[in-house]
């Protein structure tokens, strides 16, 4: 039985700009928004859009991601036919190879896609926070009679040169593609989400593979080749919340925006578009008699006895009496001991911050850094971590790191 559309999710990115957070896990597995991981967003979008077959292309540090995805049950993607499959590079009779680029990753899994004989394939990116109805995108693709469509966002003109830009006519037909141009002719930034007719995609993947000079990349090779051949290419306008969380500051910012869904952030409180995740299974959180909690998000299993202000606390975080947490993203299982001050920073999973230690600082005129503590790190009593620090190793009591 053929599937109308299946999804291929690019999750191989190392996320090197997230430094301490991606030492041991791939970027799509980075925790987000209190109880989610980044990959929950594209996966939930798929399920909510009616896509029941998803291939996840992994390469870098896949262990956490593999375990997290499991059989796909939390996303309702444990199916008899289809469902979610993690696809690492593998050995074949003709030899084996790492995924050389985004296009090559799909090329190496042509046989996976053909098992489902789909009409359309949607290519997704595992490093974006976004709620998007892919079925509406597909409707657009079909209505336009497109062979290739790309989802685009309007960005401010002065920022346009940071993006891959689609130049389109009044019918949304793409006429030109500019990759990070000095003089942008358009402000329609590619979101890295594509729908292809499968026959077209396959033809171009095979062709691209045969080209020894190709970087095997969608943006640099496949899309320019489609344009060269005058294929039917259309730009689908998306105007919801979308954030690429590829850097520490954008990840921190996107988390903070969750606290204000009415104005800036993604709305996680949407019964009609739930974001699914693998659950911690912890019991309800507890706010102590002397605790103060202001404008924050608190997840199951937390124990709060200190002062938490404008922060996001993931499952099982403990904040001891007298500790202060402000503008912070604190991931699961972290313990913040008595009197510690944790501000304007990202603290990864299972960190211990010792008594009276200071991590990060509220931004000042010249200093807007987001301090980052990697997972499993121990920060000793009274240690001081500066606002630009990126902590990968334990810090002894009383020491400083800037």
């Amino acid at each position, binding site marked *: 039985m053929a599937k109308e559309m299946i999804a291929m999710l690019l999750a191989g990115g190392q996320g090197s700009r997230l430094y301490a957070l991606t030492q041991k896990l791939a970027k799509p597995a980075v925790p987000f*928004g209190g109880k989610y991981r980044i990959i929950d967003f594209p996966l939930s979008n798929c399920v909510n859009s009616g896509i029941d077959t998803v291939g996840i292309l992994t390469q870098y540090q896949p262990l956490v991601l593999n375990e997290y995805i499991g059989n796909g049950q939390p996303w309702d993607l444990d199916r008899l036919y289809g469902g979610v499959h993690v696809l690492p590079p593998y050995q074949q009779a003709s030899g084996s190879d790492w995924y050389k680029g985004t296009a090559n990753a799909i090329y190496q899994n042509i046989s996976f896609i053909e098992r489902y004989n789909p009409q359309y394939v949607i290519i997704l990116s595992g490093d974006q926070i976004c709620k998007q109805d892919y079925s509406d995108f597909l409707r657009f693709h079909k209505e336009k009679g497109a062979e290739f469509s790309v989802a685009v966002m309007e960005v401010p003109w002065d920022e346009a040169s940071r993006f891959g830009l689609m130049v389109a006519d009044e019918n949304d037909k793409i006429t030109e593609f500019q990759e990070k141009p000095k003089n942008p002719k358009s402000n329609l930034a590619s979101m890295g989400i594509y729908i292809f007719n499968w026959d077209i995609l396959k033809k171009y993947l095979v062709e691209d593979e045969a080209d020894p000079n190709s970087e095997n990349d969608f943006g640099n090779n496949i899309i320019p080749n489609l344009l060269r051949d005058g294929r039917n290419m259309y730009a689908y306008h998306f105007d919801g919340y979308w954030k690429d969380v590829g850097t520490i500051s954008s990840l921190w910012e996107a988390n903070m925006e969750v606290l204000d869904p009415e104005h800036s952030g993604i709305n996680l409180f949407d019964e009609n578009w739930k974001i699914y995740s693998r659950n911690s299974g912890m019991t309800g*959180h*507890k*706010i102590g008699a002397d605790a103060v*909690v202001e404008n924050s998000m608190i997840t199951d299993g937390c124990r709060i006895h200190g002062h938490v202000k404008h922060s996001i606390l993931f499952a099982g975080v403990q904040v001891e009496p007298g500790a202060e947490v402000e503008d912070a993203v604190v991931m699961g299982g972290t313990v913040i001991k008595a009197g510690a001050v944790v501000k304007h920073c990202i603290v990864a999973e299972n960190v211990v911050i010792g008594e009276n230690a200071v991590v990060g600082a509220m931004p000042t005129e010249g200093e807007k850094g987001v301090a980052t503590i990697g997972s499993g790190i121990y920060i000793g009593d009274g240690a001081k971590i500066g606002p630009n620090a990126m902590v990968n190793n334990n810090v002894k009591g009383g020491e400083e790191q800037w």
Partner: protein
Amino acid sequence: MVNSNANALGILFPNSYDSLVPELVGERLMASIPFAGRYRMVDFMLSSMVNCGIDNVSLIVRKNYHSLMDHLGSGREWDLTRKNGGLNIVPPFAEKTVKVYNGRVEALSSILDFLKDQKQQYVVMADTNIAANFDFKAMINEHIKSGADVSIAYAKVEIPVSARQSTNISGGLYYTLEVEDGDVKEIYINPKDEGIQNCSMNIYVVGREFLIEQIHDAFVKGYSYFERDIVAPQLDKLKVHGYLFEGYLARISDMKSYFDENMKLLDDKNLDALFSPNPIYTKIRDDNPTRYIQGAVVKNVMAADGCVIEGEVENSVLFRGVKVAKGAIVKNCVLMQDTVIGEGAKVEYLITDKNVTISAGKEVKGTDTFPVYVAKYQVV
């Protein structure tokens, strides 16, 4: 084969003691009463069994079990979706001549054939009116070591006041034990003694074949209660072992105790005791984390995921998806899932069932000894 599992199957009686809390079981049964923020009563015994390697659990239901079936589903959350064993819900056979069962004897006789086909050597049985992190494996091991025919778990606690004061037995029987060197010498039925007693938890370990034999005999004689009609009269013939449970337990015996047992979990010591050493599993709802909006004031609160708090909350237990609007004041309350407290409303000593709405500006106050209860889907 590697033997990682307990050599026992589990049987739960989800309807036992329903009549103690008539308000809460209007459209459900004891097992599906919401408790402790995100759980249902059944989760505790069920999870305890699973955590001890019991992966064949039957629930013999009697009535009002839709909510329980919805909660348990295929048993996946408890890791009981198994090809062999797993979760097994046994509803009563709808025959004209068969009445819905009364005691455990009738309940068990309805699954005698099933019991005969099983392979486990022991059977553990429990009700769902007690929330505890119970170590069945320890009890089974002690049962084996003692060489007893039957083991009964008991705790040293007071008989609930409501049970002591009740004059009829329609609320269900309760038992205290006289234990000497681990052997049960006497079983008292519905005693009225004050002070700490050896209160039976109605948790039993018995040999499977022994159980089949006893139930068969008892059913033929028209008996209905396992304790009263089988164990108690044969104390001289059988070796009955008392297993002392010293962990934390919450027993639901009436509305007041329901309120108190929820409130007791605001003490971290009690919360940790109930939820350790092993996790308690429950149905997943995929709620977002709880959000405290600017202006919210919270003191001594346990809340599950999915709440949105804008008002003032003190000394309360909030279940999943509770909304407390701006200016609302909530004190000493137990608010079940998806309760909405409207803007400026004031509530104290209130228990709301699922999906209750307290409209803006309304005041609802109970007292310490008599909390007000608002039923499912009601709008005040």
